[in-house]
């Protein structure tokens, strides 16, 4: 079991955002969390990545208890994350964006005098190549198009050589073409690097084409869980969630 969340509860001053949730992700799985707005998907991500500490319950990664550890420590253990809103370093060049992440992963950040430009060149260019951004290496990342920025964020995330990738709405705000190419990129990279995926997504076509396990959140609790077909046929799910579309 790669990732295991046991009886997690998160309350913000009495408001219970996550209520006694159990979640497991196995190695190699493409797991997806769906649910209406405010169901607690992003809170769940924040609990796993250490941005929030659960009020109750534990989080295990590789059977190691990571509850309450700082985000950077959890990241160094092999968890990568992309954020719902694009999260890059806008005034740095594309190259520097990725380089900072590579340096952090290689534990070379605490170096005060070596010129950074000479370090980890090949690793950085390899990552930029993976997401198709080599030509933009010297552009200021904030001037890139939205689709490019998402690709760049993927490269930043991959720089820490994660085993599991947590993607929060990877296609939010994208055109259909951008959605298709982003999903292709994610699937290709997951396959090449043998990655486990845990993602949230609002586009049901994407969910059912990528995921091999779906967890449905509703009001902070797990409503249903299982293979895509089973979840699709679940009457509760259809009522609260898919019902809107049907």
């Amino acid at each position, binding site marked *: 079991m790669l990732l295991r969340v046991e009886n997690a509860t998160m309350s913000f001053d009495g408001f219970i955002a996550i209520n006694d949730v159990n979640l497991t992700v196995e190695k190699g799985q493409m797991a997806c969390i769906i649910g209406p707005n405010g169901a607690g998907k992003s809170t769940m991500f924040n609990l796993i990545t250490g941005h929030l500490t659960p009020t109750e319950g534990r989080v295990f990664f590789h059977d190691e208890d990571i509850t309450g550890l700082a985000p950077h420590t959890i990241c160094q253990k092999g968890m990568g994350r992309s954020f719902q809103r694009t999260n*890059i370093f806008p005034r740095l060049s594309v190259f520097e964006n990725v380089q*900072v992440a590579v340096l952090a992963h290689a534990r070379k*950040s605490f170096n005060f005098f070596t010129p950074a430009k000479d370090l980890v060149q090949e690793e950085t260019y390899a990552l930029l190549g993976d997401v198709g951004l080599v030509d933009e290496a010297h552009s200021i990342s904030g001037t890139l198009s939205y689709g490019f920025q998402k690709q760049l964020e993927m490269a930043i995330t991959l720089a820490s050589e994660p085993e599991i990738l947590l993607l929060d709405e990877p296609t939010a705000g994208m055109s259909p073409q951008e959605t298709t190419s982003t999903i292709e990129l994610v699937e290709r990279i997951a396959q090449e690097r043998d990655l486990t995926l845990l993602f949230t997504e609002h586009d049901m076509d994407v969910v059912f084409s990528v995921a091999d396990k779906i967890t449905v959140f509703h009001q902070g609790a797990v409503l249903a869980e299982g293979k895509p077909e089973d979840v699709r046929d679940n009457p509760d799910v259809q009522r609260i969630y898919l019902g809107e579309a049907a």
Partner: protein
Amino acid sequence: MEPLSQARAAYRDPVLWCFLAVMALMFWVPELIIYMGWADFWIIFLTEVFIWSLFAVAFNLLMGYGGLISFGQAAYLGIGGYTAGLLLKYIVWMNFYVALIAAPIGGALAALVIGYFCIRRTHIYFAILTLAFGHIVYLIAFKWYDFTGGDNGLIGIPVPDWVKDPTFANYYKFVLVITMIAVYLLWRIVNSPFGKTLTAIRENEVRADFVGVDVQRFKLYAFMIAGAFSGLAGALIMINERSVYPDLAHWTQSTQVLLMSLLGGVYTFFGPVVGAFLLLTLDADITQNYPEIWQLFLGGILVLILFGLPGGIVGFIQERDETSADDQVTKMNKLIAQFSRKTWYFFIGAVVFTAFFAILQAPDSWWISEDWDFELLSLVTWGIIPRTVLQAVVGAALLWWLLRGVRSYQLLFRWLLLAFTVLSLVLQMYLETPLSGLAIVFLWNIYCFYVLFQDDIRQAFSDGVPAAAEDAAREAAD
């Protein structure tokens, strides 16, 4: 390995080497000042400029690179000054150099303690905490009579004999060398992996955290580095005056260094150096004749900078109009159009400000007066307003013609334009414009040189006219 060599080429930063070369040349400025018979004041003045440059660059490591706006940076200036001052005053056998090395260590240790609390908060809360701690440091210096001498300060601090030479040239050179070394070290630090990571934290703390960066630790180290170099600057000020007063740690000094960074350009390494030079020059030029309007003037300058040049002066010089999607020709044309526009700003700024400072310094000579021996061929005797009008009209006509040549990529005009700006500087020197006016024209010189000798623009000129530029030139001619 093409990308590798590209990055290597970029690493040979010409700006740093220009700075170090200019600093090295300035080693002999005291001899020049003495030889020319100018006032010793200028040697002391330049010494102060160096010290404040060092302080401002150290401060900007926090503000520009780390995004940590400290309102209490003068605390470390004070701690450095008092550390070295107390050691020299109360320990008889204390070696001068040991005391000088103790100052940055004292600054760093104080920053470790204060920073431990401050970095736990962000944005305005961080700023207010630094202000509060800074004021605590000031009050300790101000009230603890038995230890710091209170508001009487520490006076008569023993320094080696070579510091006390009557022309101040020795100490000038000492400070120059220390500033060169310290600024070089800071430059290495901001370009190291540490510096890059610090910039990433400034840009996006949450993301930096989740690429595995221990954000708090980086901020604390940055705080300590800034504290150490500020402490060094404090000790240099103390030795310059051979005394130290609580005022050194007062919050007004913190705002002074903040202004220097803003004026010069926060997101540039050398911006604070330019800011320190400009602010102290303006101060020297204006307080000399109109001490009462200095604050008003400073406020006016600040408003101008924040609205007109939000990136500061060096930011204005370095800014480049480019989008990654543009092709080469569009990019070149955009850059040249931007150059043309900014050259006009500089021209207007130089004309207006040089006249303004000249009138401030010699208020009686603003118009042709009977006391003056008016000669048609000697511009000095014209009076400032008439000659400025002449400069503006003739200069604008010439500049218009030169810029037309530059826009059509004619190699000769690039050189002529450069010569034009250099001649403007020579003209202002001949007219004995005050230092502030000269500084503005000098920055214009640097700007023209900086843009016209960028690799890509130089290439566009020597390759001949880019296709689209021909059309643009034809349009301009119509």
